């Protein structure tokens, strides 16, 4: 799932080299945290959050057979 989100995020952004995805456990789920260049945060989220919502839909479908659910969050550089 990490590879899927990394690959899709790299296609979406203007600075693919800045894309990082880390995976950690969050209860019974896997939490994927996506970091992109500050100027790409808007692109990843999209108008009215449509792009990040689409990524979450793809992620949910891709992890349908896995025992663990997958959650996706975009990290703001300042928070990390």
């Amino acid at each position, binding site marked *: 799932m990490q590879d899927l989100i990394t690959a899709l995020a790299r296609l979406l952004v203007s600075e693919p080299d800045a894309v990082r995805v880390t995976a950690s456990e969050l209860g019974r789920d896997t939490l994927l945290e996506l970091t992109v260049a500050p100027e790409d945060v808007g692109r990843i989220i*999209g108008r*009215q959050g449509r792009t990040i919502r*689409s*990524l979450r839909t*793809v992620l949910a479908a891709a992890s349908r057979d896995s025992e663990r659910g997958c959650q996706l969050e975009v990290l703001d550089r300042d928070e990390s």
Partner: protein
Amino acid sequence: MKPLDEALLRQFLDTLLREGHFRLTYRFLARPAGEARDFENPELLVDFDGEDAPLLLANGGELLRATEHLAHEILRLGSDEHERLVFDCHNRRMLRVDELRTAAELAAQRVLKTGLPYAFGPMSSRERRVIHMALRGTQGIQTGSQGVGPQRHVVIEPLQPARPAARRREIRRL
């Protein structure tokens, strides 16, 4: 207008299917240049098939619409260019257009008969456009959109609102 970057689109689709382990195949159906573009006649139609087709079509085609949105973003297509590239599977999108047109005609007939406005449920801009276009030539009504964001919906209004007396008679008859 720049041509669609088909190589980039293939890269996206191949990545998506491989990394997401989706059992799907796709084919490109290109339309000749110079024809009028709209939702039913896109420049490029990506047609999916395969074992996971039901997954793509579940929840009103949620995954199909999500992947199409990602493709629009990756290809940097502005909102006025979305009709150039459409994703479909088992003809779902085209059937939905027929469904919307039928709903539009029925609603318009009702507005003409009762003289009362009719509001549709919330729809995407593309679906709202199908309704507007379907009723473009219908006499005696006008269509508009109301509400913001995900609540935006089409309203059909009569050009001549029902007179109060006629409205009362109509309500009794209904």
